[in-house]
């Protein structure tokens, strides 16, 4: 069962060292693969870390078929 956990997000952050614009796309992918979606909190946090606006990140995410911004309903 996937789902957002702050602790796992922090572990993920540690595993890549730091998130900059150079590795943002790859990191968003890791978030997607770990939680099954990219939570709102993560977008806020990454915007603060990279200096790229939340709107830009959200806009990009929603243009990709394989990125989700909401958790999938559990059946």
């Amino acid at each position, binding site marked *: 069962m996937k789902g957002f956990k702050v602790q796992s997000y922090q572990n993920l952050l540690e595993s890549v060292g730091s998130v900059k*614009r150079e590795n943002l*796309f*790859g990191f968003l*992918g890791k978030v*997607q693969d770990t939680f099954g979606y990219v939570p709102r909190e993560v977008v806020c946090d990454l915007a603060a870390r990279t200096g790229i606006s939340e709107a830009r990140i959200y806009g*990009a995410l929603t*243009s*990709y*078929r*394989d990125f989700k911004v909401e958790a999938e309903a559990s059946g």
Partner: protein
Amino acid sequence: MKENKVLTQRVGKYKPLDLKAYQAMGGFKGLRRALSMTVESVIEEIRRSGLTGRGGAGFPTGLKWASAAQDKQGPKYFICNADEGELGTFKDKVLLDGDPWAVLEGMLIAACAIGAEQAYIYIKGEYDKTAELWEKLAGEAEKANLLGDGILGSGFSVNLQVVRGRGPYVAGEEFALISSLEACRAMSRLKPPYPTEKGLFGRPTVVNNVETIANVPMILANGIEKYLSLGVEGEPGTRLFSLSGDVKRPGVYELEMGAGTLEELINEFGQGTKNGRPVKAVQPGGGTSALLSRDSLGCRLTAKAISEAGSGIGTAGVIVYEEGKSAIDIVKGLMEFYGVESCGRCAPCRIGVVRMKEIVDNLSCGKGTAKGLTQLREIGKVCVATATCGMGQAFPLPVLSALELFGEDFEMAVQESSV
């Protein structure tokens, strides 16, 4: 006609993560030699080898590198384009899974030659197992001092990021891929400036296809003469042909340039058409290449011969269609795919692809009109002439060529509609 396994010689011969086995087969000879040469002479060797891009556009690799190498200040980037999205093309996967160290070696040579300290490999989203393999490979390479600071004791530093694509077809286009790595929407841009001048984060960037880059180690390890002895004048080396469609034995076959004809490829390697019917049409260079009719089957497998026949070698993804289906069915399948893949950056493609898909759909369900055929031609021509990127300029080609070669199929559909 025989396969000549040069690029694929090691595929299946070692476990993908086994670096020692790769080295035992002569691996990293090319990189070691490159590190002992000046960057200018490495680029000059690649230029003289006549290596051209294998991702579709066929641009000379040496020129690309030379252009990016000119800028001596600030960061530069090297990207290996493994977002193999073109319809009917699956050759890069063979190298990525079967001989990944050779691809990495080529990437390292390229990154050092152009002066890029950050390299990326952008792997198609659907190739998730391949991406996992490459994550592990990057770890192994770091341990072996092939990545990181001062690779193999030289003055060059290269870091690698393995990135998975997230869906869009157009991300395989170099500028769309760059936008994607910038965490933006995967959209193409107007050229010039080219990526080698202003690419990733506004810095010089070289984007090379997997197969292109897999050629590099062997050119440097064995010398240009040996490489030039393969293939034909002006088109040295081998190509990986992805054969698919209505053939008995689809697959990836490595052939020397000009080693045979389309017909030989279909009959000898593909073992003929699926139902034994004659061939109706062939797309020799992936889903966006113009159709060739049966009359062109004698065409030799070189970029020159195929373009003279009226199509393009593109990604060398040969898609075969046998008799028994209408040309409308062929283009309908293609338009269903491209119809949803336009990035929306430029109007001709954004609007044109939807209109063309509509007209083709109408034709296929008995609602075609003569006016529709005229519009199909006109919209297609406008797209080819005015779209920003390779996708918009190329997706109408199969439709336009089908109208020309199989006009009677379309006329018949119109007549049946008006009854």
